[in-house]
């Protein structure tokens, strides 16, 4: 079956440093969505990427979809304490269908 792996599993950064999480799939992804889950919270939708090579930005967050649609990345510039949480990529199976989540990257910020 499909496997969606993320690296690293954990990342500790000093506040103000950059952070990147990488998402890799064993199969071609239809669309890739990114979710953030704060400690003790629920997943919150961040963005969806659809096209090969697509790049989208949300303030300090930059999302990329690989050319072969088998990988994706999320980059956060100048991290802040509010960025703490686990970031999941998820394959949405052509939209409006079940999500297959990646293994997640847990980000902690050292003030």
């Amino acid at each position, binding site marked *: 079956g499909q496997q969606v792996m993320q690296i690293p599993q954990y990342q500790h950064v000093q506040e103000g440093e950059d952070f990147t999480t990488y998402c890799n799939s064993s199969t071609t992804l239809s669309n890739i969505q990114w979710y953030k889950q704060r400690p003790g919270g629920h997943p919150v*939708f961040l963005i969806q990427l659809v096209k090969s090579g697509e790049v989208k930005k949300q303030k300090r967050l930059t999302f990329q979809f690989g050319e072969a649609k088998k990988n994706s990345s999320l980059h956060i510039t100048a991290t802040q304490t509010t960025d703490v949480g686990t970031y999941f990529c998820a394959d949405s199976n052509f939209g409006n269908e079940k999500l297959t*989540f990646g293994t997640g990257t847990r980000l902690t910020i050292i003030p």
Partner: protein
Amino acid sequence: AAGVIQSPRHLIKEKRETATLKCYPIPRHDTVYWYQQGPGQDPQFLISFYEKMQSDKGSIPDRFSAQQFSDYHSELNMSSLELGDSALYFCASSLGESQYFGPGTRLTVL
């Protein structure tokens, strides 16, 4: 804005007991999903409903069943509970691309 509502938020049960989790999706959302998230794990898809009909099924044990009612709320019924069923159970609703997750029900089986 209205969000997905789940009840109860916390539930403690003994082994072999039954549990019922409820989900109230965002109004006018046509699809409801149930996910199970173990400690330190990613959410795993259980089952989904589109317009009150089951639309997809994941790794849901036979001991679990779910349905969506005429008012669009959904219930996840879990019987013969096992210790390994202890987890966070999320309901999510959708009207298109993104899924909106509820706060979850934390089930503890003793």
